[in-house]
């Protein structure tokens, strides 16, 4: 649905030039939720804004739904943008219009026939759970409600793709959770493809099927969540399941085990203890439901040196990732 190749964008100023996006390749399949995770200044925002040409890339290609965005003329670009919804960190609502007016604005812009607008607005507000707030002004809404208006507005023209620019970063954890549930729901019900940028691991955990870590304008790793969980040393896997507990225990071998999919449900630790008669100790860990899969991660201590545990480690490697 979205395909980015060799994307580069450099900002020049008097102090020199900064490569905000420095050669990024990215594929988001239809119905996928792709999260780009990174600190502020990593270039995520520029990357996202290059998708709908709010920023013109210096090099590389961006295609959305098979349409090569970099080659479009102004009029064509406007039409293409109708098919790409976008939501913003600070909501970007029109303060002078009511909730209904803000959603109607999107319909006016896309040239939807006047007759059906009112009904469509009501439909969209119901979809995001804002029926009854239609006549309120943005200033009277909570952050979560404002973002719901933003989502309703973004979906007005029935886009296939939604771009999310830190959509939950200005919200408290509970509201974040409810907005993520809504996005997940829309992804499932409408088959909406979502490309989002965020600095919050929770977002990736809750709704992403694929993710990438971005740093200094580049992807340092990317793939489906399942793949990443199987990749030894994956930053994302570590970030999704932060482990505490000691990394060294006297007289024991400490390892981190990451399992995903059906293995997450299997009694692996019990089997380990039984088969190798090992007094295995769990130092930390959890099993959680991700959007894509279930996954578990534990830090365990096996008595004895690594050499004494060769068989046990082999057993674990067959079931998940040991690091």
């Amino acid at each position, binding site marked *: 649905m979205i395909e980015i190749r060799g994307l580069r964008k450099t900002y020049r100023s008097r102090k020199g030039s900064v490569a905000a996006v420095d050669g990024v390749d990215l594929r988001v399949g239809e119905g996928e939720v792709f999260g780009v995770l990174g600190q502020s200044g990593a270039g995520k925002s520029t990357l996202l804004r290059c998708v709908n040409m709010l920023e013109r890339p210096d090099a590389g290609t961006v295609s959305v739904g098979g349409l090569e965005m970099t080659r479009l003329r102004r009029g064509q670009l406007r039409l293409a943008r109708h098919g790409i919804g976008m939501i*913003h960190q600070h909501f970007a609502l029109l303060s*002078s219009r009511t909730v209904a007016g803000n959603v109607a604005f999107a319909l006016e812009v896309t040239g939807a026939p006047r007759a059906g607008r009112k009904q469509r607005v009501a439909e969209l507000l119901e979809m995001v759970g804002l029926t009854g707030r239609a006549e309120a002004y943005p200033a009277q809404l909570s952050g979560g409600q404002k973002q719901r208006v933003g989502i309703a507005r973004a979906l007005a*023209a029935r886009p296939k793709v939604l771009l999310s620019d830190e959509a939950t970063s200005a919200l408290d954890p509970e509201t974040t959770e409810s907005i993520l549930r809504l996005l997940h729901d829309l992804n499932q019900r409408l088959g909406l493809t979502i490309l989002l940028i965020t600095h919050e691991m929770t977002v990736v955990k809750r709704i992403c099927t694929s993710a990438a870590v971005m740093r200094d304008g580049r992807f340092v790793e990317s793939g489906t969540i399942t793949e990443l969980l199987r990749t030894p040393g994956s930053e994302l896997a570590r970030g999704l399941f932060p482990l505490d507990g000691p990394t060294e225990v006297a007289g024991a071998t400490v390892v981190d085990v990451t399992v995903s999919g059906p293995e997450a449900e299997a009694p692996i630790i019990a089997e380990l203890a039984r088969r190798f008669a090992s007094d295995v100790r769990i130092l930390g860990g959890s099993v959680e439901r991700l959007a894509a899969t279930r996954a578990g991660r534990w830090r365990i201590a096996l008595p004895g040196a690594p050499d004494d545990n060769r068989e046990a480690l082999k057993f674990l490697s067959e079931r998940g990732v040991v690091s």
Partner: protein
Amino acid sequence: MTWSEVFELLTGGLQETVWMVGVSALLTAVGGLLVGVLLVLTDAGRLRPLNVVLGAIVNVGRSLPFIILLVAVIPFTRAVVGTTIGTDAAIVPLTIGAIPFFARIVESALREVPPDVVAAATAMGATRRQIVGKVLLREALPALVAGLTITVIALVGYSAMAGVVGGGGLGDLAIRYGYQRFETEVMIATVVALVVFVQLVQMVGDFLVRRLSHR
């Protein structure tokens, strides 16, 4: 001079002032909006040279004290209105003086619209016309009305100076009767009328801003 005579003078002067200020405010609103929008639209991109020229013209207009502008544009006033005396003639320099003033207010009001909101409209596929009309001007409307109120009050001040060169209005009254003939009653009455008038303009402006603002 009896109070009823003063009153008569006053109503006449006030009418002239309202006419001068009203018409020039209307023309200024249109002209200033146009110039202000152009200043914002040409700020970046290929039209940048136009911005520089326009900005320079606006600055020239802003740097001349009104009393000097008033005299300097006399040939132009004569060409447009046919005379340089009277309230209609005063409207020309008033408008020329106020447009750059209001244009800068419009420019800064439009810049106050969050770039985020403009980007959102662009991302939705809005045309430039839609962005100017439905986003920039509409979102800035409370600030624009507040700015127009300031401009109208400035115009009241300018219009008094127009009295110096035979423009009529309350300023003319104050100079001819209050200053040249030592008619203190007229002076006091003019001051009171001006204060009341300005207060009224400000009140109406504030009321409209409150009604329009939903922030």
